[in-house]
């Protein structure tokens, strides 16, 4: 059940992993039996592993789940992102998957001002002339009262430098997608999720504590393709920065919430926020790096390179 549905990505995954396994086994001068014994010794996920399975994995007849692949890779000091991002076929397949989902159901994504034109992705620094304007736009879209500090509070420019704002623009000025994220420490993040501290305290905490979690506040694209592309930006950031242990979302956007749930990410908590006599739900998600890498959708998005982009101003 459920094993034949997406033949193509599955084939590529199988190919990438079989190549990795053969390479790693020869590099470490291990026989198939030697590899079996090593894995057996290292993890109880391989208690019933036999050399027949290893042989099938290597010949690309079969492949273990990403969860198991991840454990195997870690035994040899690499992670799935290293393996999959360096395979051109897999990266291409991932890019194709993003575009495919846009093209297939085109009629449903017709947007008042966007007709699948070319778009550019741009990192907007906090010093950028349009930073404030774009930040406002995406905060309005997000509608999360917690992201809007009260007017009395003065926002220092230094605080905003820890925010990363990425926009997708078509025709050089029309905003067709954005994402807003920040690297913080889990301790401050849980305070924020529980409403013990506000957004400014969260941003300020980056100056005292080593960041270990990437938290996304807003992520949106007018078409599924742009939406996925935006997601790939921060997933790629997470994948390439090994100091980041967790991925988190804190959002009031029910569309993003729904997308995450469809991607099988468990919701961590829902906090109602009362604003102008209206109740707004604030959704939080948190998952570990290993959960991200074992999630096929997320792994595919994370390998899409953001190399054409300007460096970010994240981190101080």
């Amino acid at each position, binding site marked *: *059940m*459920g*094993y034949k*549905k*997406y033949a193509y*990505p*599955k084939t590529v*995954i199988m190919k990438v992993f079989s190549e990795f396994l053969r390479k790693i086994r020869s590099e470490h001068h291990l026989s198939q039996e030697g590899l079996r014994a090593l894995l057996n010794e*290292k*993890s*109880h*996920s391989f*208690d*019933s592993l036999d050399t027949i399975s290893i042989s099938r994995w290597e010949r690309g007849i079969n492949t273990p*789940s*990403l*969860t198991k692949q991840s*454990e195997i890779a*870690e035994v040899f000091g690499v992670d799935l992102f290293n393996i999959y991002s360096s395979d051109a076929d897999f990266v291409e397949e991932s890019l194709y*998957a*993003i575009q495919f*989902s846009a093209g*297939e159901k085109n009629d*449903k*994504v017709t947007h008042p001002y966007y007709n699948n034109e070319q778009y550019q992705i741009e990192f907007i620094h906090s010093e950028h002339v349009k930073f404030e304007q774009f930040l406002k736009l995406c905060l309005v879209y997000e509608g999360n009262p917690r992201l809007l500090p009260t007017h009395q509070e003065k926002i220092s420019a230094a605080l905003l430098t820890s925010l990363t704002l990425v926009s997708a623009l078509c025709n050089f000025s029309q905003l067709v997608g954005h994402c807003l994220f920040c690297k913080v*420490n*889990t*301790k401050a993040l*849980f*305070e924020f*999720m*529980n*409403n*013990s501290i506000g957004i400014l305290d969260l941003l300020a905490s980056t100056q005292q504590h080593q960041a270990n979690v990437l938290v996304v506040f807003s992520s949106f694209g007018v078409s*599924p393709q742009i*939406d*996925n592309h935006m997601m790939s930006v921060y997933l790629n950031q997470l994948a390439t920065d090994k100091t980041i242990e967790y991925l988190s979302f804190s959002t009031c956007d*029910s*569309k993003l919430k*729904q*997308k995450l749930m*469809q*991607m*099988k990410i*468990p919701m961590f*908590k*829902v906090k*109602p926020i009362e604003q102008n006599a209206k*109740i707004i739900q604030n959704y939080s998600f*948190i998952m*570990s790096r*290993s*959960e991200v890498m*074992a*999630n*096929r*959708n*997320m792994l*595919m*998005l994370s390998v899409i390179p953001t190399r054409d982009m300007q460096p970010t101003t994240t981190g101080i």
Partner: protein
Amino acid sequence: MNILIVDDQQFVREAIKADLAENTLHNKVKTFEAENAQQGIEAIVAMKGNIDLLILDLKMDNSDGMEVINFLSVQSRYATIPLAVISSSDKRTLELVNSIACGLKLNVVGVFEKPIDMDTILTETRRLQSVSQNPLEVMATTAVSDYDITQLLADEQVLLCFQPQVDMKSKAITGFEVLARMYDENGYIYPDTFIPLIYEIGLNAQFTKIIIAKAFKLWIHEANLSGYTLSINITAQDLINNDLINFIIRQKQAHSHIKLILELTESQEIMNQASVLNSIARLIINGIRISLDDFGKSYSTYERLDTIPFNEIKIDRSFVCDIDTNEQHRLIVESTIALAKKMSVNVVAEGIETESVLNILDDLGCDIAQGYLYSPPMEGRYLNAWINRYEHREVSGNDK
């Protein structure tokens, strides 16, 4: 569009129908009616769930809407039916029902106070529908019912994650609770998804056996873990299974140094069965400690206190996580801790995420702390690294 109205008052149903006729193009809407929960459930089954909107009254003569909500939640094929709950109850009750229905992962359009405005409900239904039809995913993911749990279990596609428990006073790590994950080629599968499926097909004892076997293997293999308690969840249904009980006792006898704690979640109906109590007695005689899990969450709480010679109470995270802001929850937690002290049993608080909650629990005299403040559940292979970092104060929670 098929609309099912479940309400005991005929005039309400008529009013809704009249409203619908006004708000929608004629002929496009077909309405169905039921006057109590049972009839409603029968109608859902008869219509094979082919319902575009279910309008459900919360309080009806002889029955209540919760019956229908519970039915929708256990029958996963009906969980996607758009549900609009209507009621004349107060705001707090409406919020409660909303959070229950959302927690059960039902397709909630909203909870609406009577008198209702059909136009609002229909608009909201359509909006949610358009959102859910938007092809957002990279690829379609398999539906919940598509998981072949039997096969995943046969392949032992089960992964153990662990969450640390810490002594409130000394800040020393006391043990770990096992939190199971399953996985397929798409990623992790979480207990709220697979546990109901496992119970539905009656593989719960086999599942618990796999968890215990894997956890024991890790505790045997990693000698430095043996000082820590190993807490594993078990249900009353598991306790009926003699094979499983024998297996657990054999494991414990073979590895008597492992400090096994079984965290018992309730199931009211069978908790008092002689066979369940018999199993508990056998476990205790063999040096296995019993912890009452999710304490306070169910009505059977006090009955359990009376019949089971347990060693530990675990206060449910839903009470703990906001005791710094929720006075009611703080009172519940406070009295639970006081009760535990009087009975001379340990109290573990789950769901600690912030320092302020931790400090209140410390003041209240709670013994052991567990929660994301220390660590989210982590895979077994990262346990030693985490312990090492905790002891060198490189991760949060060990500030003293």
